[in-house]
């Protein structure tokens, strides 16, 4: 046993693909018994086992089969069963002919369970284990269902009859059985409750390991820490941060269910609530802080809300500019529809022009043309387009006269009357990297064709420094071509009719209802939460500063808050409230996905003001390593729930439990229930309802309860609905403004499009980073009053001459899924170093790599003044020269905590600053940095000086392991 352990901890040389490793239990069909840790790291087999299970699901099987696995006496199994977390040697299974009375295990059916994880899918289960996860055929339980169709330009689009499952979710078996699953409650070995700085050892968070504790000890400690914090500091001493991007759940609610509980319990008990970490408009930063001041669109966070865009684009567009966006990546969290629609648009003859620093995954396949543009410089390109239109009078002057204000100020700037610089294509070319002739050609193609511009959440333009400028200018250009008329839109996606709201009655238990149905019930009963001005809040972009250097002030443009709130100062701590001393979070992505200032961002966890850090999550990743107690959470495959889904069809599903909980995990909701129990608030919190009760109640309040009986939806697993009749004729919302702006005003002070923003002019007349009229803002040195200097022509570029995009990963879902073996082995997902470690790719243009003596596959250090991360070189013509790319969300694997990360988390290079001086949005992409090949001496020195980091149990297939951080018998 000891020998096995040693093998595990020295597994630095990479195993060759297919070579025998300690994960060979995955190769075989072996029975694995992992002590109390049953399940984790176990993608074990099925038919070789001598498990006796009666197969009961026979309803859709052609032949009715009722048999017992291994019961026919036909399977001889030799297994070697070993202890927890260890290698299982090969199982030799000899299967002979099944004989009469049984069939070969391969032909035996499994039970099908419906799960809605963006979108709906089928999961087959046998002997308590997941066999497969596959798309749902919508007609499988509804044989009469016919695909809906849609005609445009003489061609017919036919709805797909399978759910468009993305690779993120069809590979999810690896995630469910990941060796990185948290199996039981954990406590950091050198943390003691009570808040004594000498006993909390905050400085060791992220360094010291954890040990197993019981649920009872964990929840007792948590409850007492919560009460102690409240006694010492009041409820605002507790901070909760729910994170986005966990699984899609309803009752069990992967996001913020702890926040819901705290609000409910604290308001009813203390009349005051906790300190909430609240998001900035994250994926919409540039739109919310910029375009909103031009055209309103409050509900779309500053973006035109999509409305039947499939119809609008299919019928009316000639050209679709996909600007700063990768739809074959960013949309995969939901479905694969973009590719399906892109094929349709191309069939219709619509031109797709991609404007991005990289030939992104969508451009690589769908682009009619790729125009590479340097990060953070889109405004120069946009201004040169406006200049061309002004000079050639190829914009809609009449529309500008009737629909906008302040255009003359914009003209003054573009034509050089304001600053003496004409924003000509020749001026823009060296700034943005696009030749002047191509800029002019683009301007004319845009003006001569009916053109829409597509962005989706989190494109490069929207989350860079000063992102409000490109997103305002984007709207300016659309306005100059008569925005709102058919075919002239900002399109966030090609939405199908269901997503456009043209479906039948929506399902109440929407998949994106963050706090779930249970919380809806609570809302009807609890004391209302005070407005944010009367409680304690921390904007996520300012979290590090808030903890380390309070008090802080910022403008409160929280996500989904109205435009006017961007002019209101928020203070943390707010008057009469405490600073934070306890942190509780779920589905964390703080360390890997948010900016907050480079490798040093983790200092927040080492501050002794943070007396207790509690996290709940299924996997030991992200900020979990910086916590004091970790509670193990289920995946939704281990839960019974109700959920809805929509791609080509809208569905309501009753989600049966596919497998039993792995380890001692519980759902996020159940975790909170256990804490509520220790706070003597269980009955109030659960409303006396069991999970079964709530699922049934969810169905009864779904708006679909009259379409199908409870018994039938349980039998079939799901109900499917097509779009409503006549959905094609719904017009876009912006058409009304186009037709009559006075009668249909925008949510701006003037009700019109504001080239010179009235709100910005009133509140920030001298802001040179977000002036009343949108500008190209290059930034510059801090001493000259600039927030950022992230331009290739700036001072910092002398030391850090590459602009690095830190965008959404294709083979992860932000900070999630970095442990899925089948995604990690895809060539663009990870780069295998000579040491066998799978490094996060650093994408480099061929010329940039050659200039640095870097070859494909080299281990490189990617660095700037904020941190250093290691990465594997991926040399490609898909990058324009001068630009590198490191996807965000890789799990940090610290060599030197807070300084050097082997995992390649892009957060290590991010700025401590925010979007611009008066806009505390997240600044997530477009940073100056440099790349160097790591020398042998350098790597040797790190190995010598930080042996623990290099000897951590590591699995080439799935990366970091649970047992790397847990003492004792994991």
């Amino acid at each position, binding site marked *: 046993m000891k020998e096995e352990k040693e093998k595990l901890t020295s597994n630095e040389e990479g195993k060759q*693909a*297919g070579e*025998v490793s300690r994960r*060979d239990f*995955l*190769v*075989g*069909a072996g029975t694995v018994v992992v002590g109390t840790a049953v399940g984790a790291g176990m*993608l074990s087999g*099925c038919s*070789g086992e001598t498990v006796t299970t009666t197969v009961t699901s026979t309803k859709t*099987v*052609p032949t009715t089969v009722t048999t017992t696995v291994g019961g026919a006496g036909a399977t001889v199994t030799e297994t070697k069963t070993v202890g927890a977390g260890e290698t299982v040697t*090969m199982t030799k*299974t000899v*299967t002979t002919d099944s004989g009469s009375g049984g069939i070969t295990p*391969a*032909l035996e*059916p*499994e039970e099908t369970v419906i799960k809605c994880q963006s979108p709906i899918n089928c999961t*087959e289960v046998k002997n308590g284990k997941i066999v*497969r996860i*596959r798309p749902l055929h919508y007609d499988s339980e509804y044989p009469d269902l016919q695909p809906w169709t849609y005609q445009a330009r003489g061609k017919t689009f036919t709805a*797909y009859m*399978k759910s*468009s499952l*993305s*690779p993120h979710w*069809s*590979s999810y078996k690896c995630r469910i059985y990941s060796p990185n699953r948290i199996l039981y409650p954990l406590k950091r070995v050198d943390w003691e409750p009570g808040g004594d700085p000498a006993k909390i050892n905050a400085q060791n968070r992220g360094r010291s390991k954890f040990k197993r504790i019981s649920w009872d000890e964990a929840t007792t400690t948590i409850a007492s820490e919560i009460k102690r914090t409240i006694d010492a500091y009041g409820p605002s001493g507790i901070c909760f941060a729910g994170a986005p991007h966990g699984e899609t759940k309803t009752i069990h609610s992967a996001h913020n269910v702890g926040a819901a509980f705290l609000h409910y319990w604290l308001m009813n008990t203390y009349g005051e609530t906790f300190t909430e970490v609240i998001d900035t408009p994250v994926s919409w930063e540039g739109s919310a802080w910029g375009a909103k001041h031009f055209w309103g669109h409050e509900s779309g966070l500053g973006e035109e809300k999509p409305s039947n865009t499939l119809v609008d684009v299919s019928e009316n567009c000639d050209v679709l500019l996909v600007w700063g966006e990768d739809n074959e990546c960013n949309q*995969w969290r939901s479905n*694969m529809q973009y590719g399906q629609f*892109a094929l349709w648009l191309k069939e219709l003859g619509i031109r797709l022009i991609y404007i991005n620093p990289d*030939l992104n*995954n969508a451009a*690589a*396949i769908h*682009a009619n043309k*790729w*125009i*590479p543009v340097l990060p953070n410089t889109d405004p120069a390109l946009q201004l040169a387009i406006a200049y061309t239109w002004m000079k050639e009078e190829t914009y809609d002057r009449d529309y500008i006269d009737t629909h906008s204000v302040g255009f003359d100020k914009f003209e003054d700037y573009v034509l050089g009357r304001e600053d003496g610089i004409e924003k000509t*294509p020749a001026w823009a070319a060296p700034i943005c990297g696009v030749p*002047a*002739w*191509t800029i*002019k*050609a*683009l301007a004319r193609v845009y003006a*001569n064709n009916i053109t829409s511009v597509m962005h989706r959440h989190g494109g490069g333009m929207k989350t860079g420094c000063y992102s409000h400028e490109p997103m305002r200018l984007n709207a300016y250009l659309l306005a100059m071509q008569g925005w709102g008329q058919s075919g002239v839109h900002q399109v966030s996606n090609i939405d199908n009719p269901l997503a456009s709201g043209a479906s039948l009655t929506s399902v109440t238990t929407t998949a994106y209802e963050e706090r779930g149905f249970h919380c809806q019930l609570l809302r009807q009963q609890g004391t209302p939460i005070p407005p944010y001005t009367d409680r304690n809040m921390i904007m996520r972009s300012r979290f590090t500063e808030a903890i380390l250097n309070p008090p802080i002030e910022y403008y409160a443009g929280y996500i989904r808050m109205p435009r006017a709130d961007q002019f209101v100062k928020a203070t943390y701590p707010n008057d009469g409230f405490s600073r934070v001393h306890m942190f509780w979070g779920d589905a964390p992505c703080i360390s890997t996905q948010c900016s907050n200032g480079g490798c040093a961002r983790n200092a927040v966890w080492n501050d002794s003001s943070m007396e207790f850090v509690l996290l709940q999550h299924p996997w030991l990743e992200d900020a979990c390593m910086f916590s004091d107690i970790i509670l193990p959470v289920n995946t939704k495959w281990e839960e019974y729930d109700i959920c809805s889904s929509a791609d080509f069809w809208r569905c309501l599903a009753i989600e049966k439990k596919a497998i039993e909980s792995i380890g001692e995990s519980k759902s996020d909701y159940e975790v909170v229930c256990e804490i509520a129990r220790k706070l003597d608030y269980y009955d109030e919190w659960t409303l006396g309802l069991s999970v079964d009760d709530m699922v049934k109640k969810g169905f009864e309040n779904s708006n679909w309860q009259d379409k199908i009986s409870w018994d039938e939806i349980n039998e079939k697993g799901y109900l499917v609905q097509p779009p409503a009749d006549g959905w094609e004729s719904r017009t876009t919302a912006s058409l009304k403004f186009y037709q009559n702006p006075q009668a249909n005003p925008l949510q701006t002070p003037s009700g019109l499009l504001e080239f010179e923003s009235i709100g910005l002019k009133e509140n920030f007349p001298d802001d040179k980073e977000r002036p009343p009229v949108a500008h190209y803002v290059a930034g510059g040195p801090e001493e000259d009053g600039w927030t950022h200097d992230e331009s290739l022509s700036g001072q910092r570029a002398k030391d850090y001459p590459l602009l690095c995009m830190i965008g959404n990963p294709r083979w992860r879902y932000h900070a999630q899924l970095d442990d899925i*073996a089948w*995604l990690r*082995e895809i060539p663009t997902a990870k780069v295998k170093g000579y040491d066998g470690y799978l490094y996060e790719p650093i994408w480099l243009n*061929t010329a940039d790599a050659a200039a640095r003596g870097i070859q494909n596959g080299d281990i490189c250090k990617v660095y700037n003044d904020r941190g250093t991360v290691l990465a594997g070189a991926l040399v490609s*013509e*898909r*990058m*324009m*020269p001068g630009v590198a790319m490191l996807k965000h969300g890789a799990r940090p694997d610290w060599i030197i905590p807070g300084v050097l990360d082997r995992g390649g988390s892009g957060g290590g290079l991010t700025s401590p600053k925010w979007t611009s001086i008066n806009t505390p949005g997240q600044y997530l992409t477009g940073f100056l940095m440099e790349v160097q090949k790591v020398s042998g001496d350098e790597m040797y020195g790190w190995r010598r000086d930080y042996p623990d980091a290099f000897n951590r149990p590591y699995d*080439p*297939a799935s990366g970091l392991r649970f047992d790397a951080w847990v003492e004792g018998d994991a």
Partner: protein
Amino acid sequence: MKVFVHDAAKCCGCYQCQISCKDEHCSNDWTPYAKPQPLTGQFWGKLNEYVIGTVPKVRMYYISQRCNHCDNPSCIPACPVEAIYKRDDGLVIIDPAKCTGCKLCIDACQYESIYYNEGLNIAQKCTGCAHILDRGWPITEPRCVDACPNECLMFGEESGFSTQITQGEVLNPELGTEPRHYYLNIPKKFIGGTVYDPVTEEVVIGATCTLSGDKTATVTTDDFGDFWFEGLAAGSFSVKIESGGKVKTIDNISTEKDVNLGDIALS
């Protein structure tokens, strides 16, 4: 007799074919059709990706590969213990019970579609998900085909794919193994460029571009000044660009790789 068809023009490179194969075969024992595939490193269904051209005329395409289930396979005669057999529906299967792990079939398959499982000491490859086809549940196609969102990977009776088979190609037909896996729209080489006037700094629209050499063709530049010659074989070419009395000729263009001639000043 079954065939696989992959249409590169509709493939978005999502790797669902590769992943779903692993979902079906890793950790699942489908004896007598197949033993479990190792968690990583084997690709019974494999997506290969290709980046062609240089900035900014770069494109990608993907080829979804697996055992070709050849009609004249090299693996079957190579096997000394007759563990490999061809079914009536055309699928070629390695019987995991008979296989002795001698690796001769791996050496024989020039498509590199067979993998060696060291733990089990057997050779393994795509089975066409025959276990699913035979029981007809829960789907009626191989997993890779079922998982393909764009329906660019197809499978079925040969008779249902006569058009695709006529228009398509097989990989390396010269090997003579008669694959039952057809491909549509695999791009051939291209030559592309952008024509501009260096004095006016304008793209030249409508310039006549004439290709000569191993193939001749004429195209005109579009509203970005771009021209593309596509579907070229590897060879040697010249391109002559003419507009407004100005002429430029570029000789000795090799299409061993796709060629972006870049931004071409016509003066």
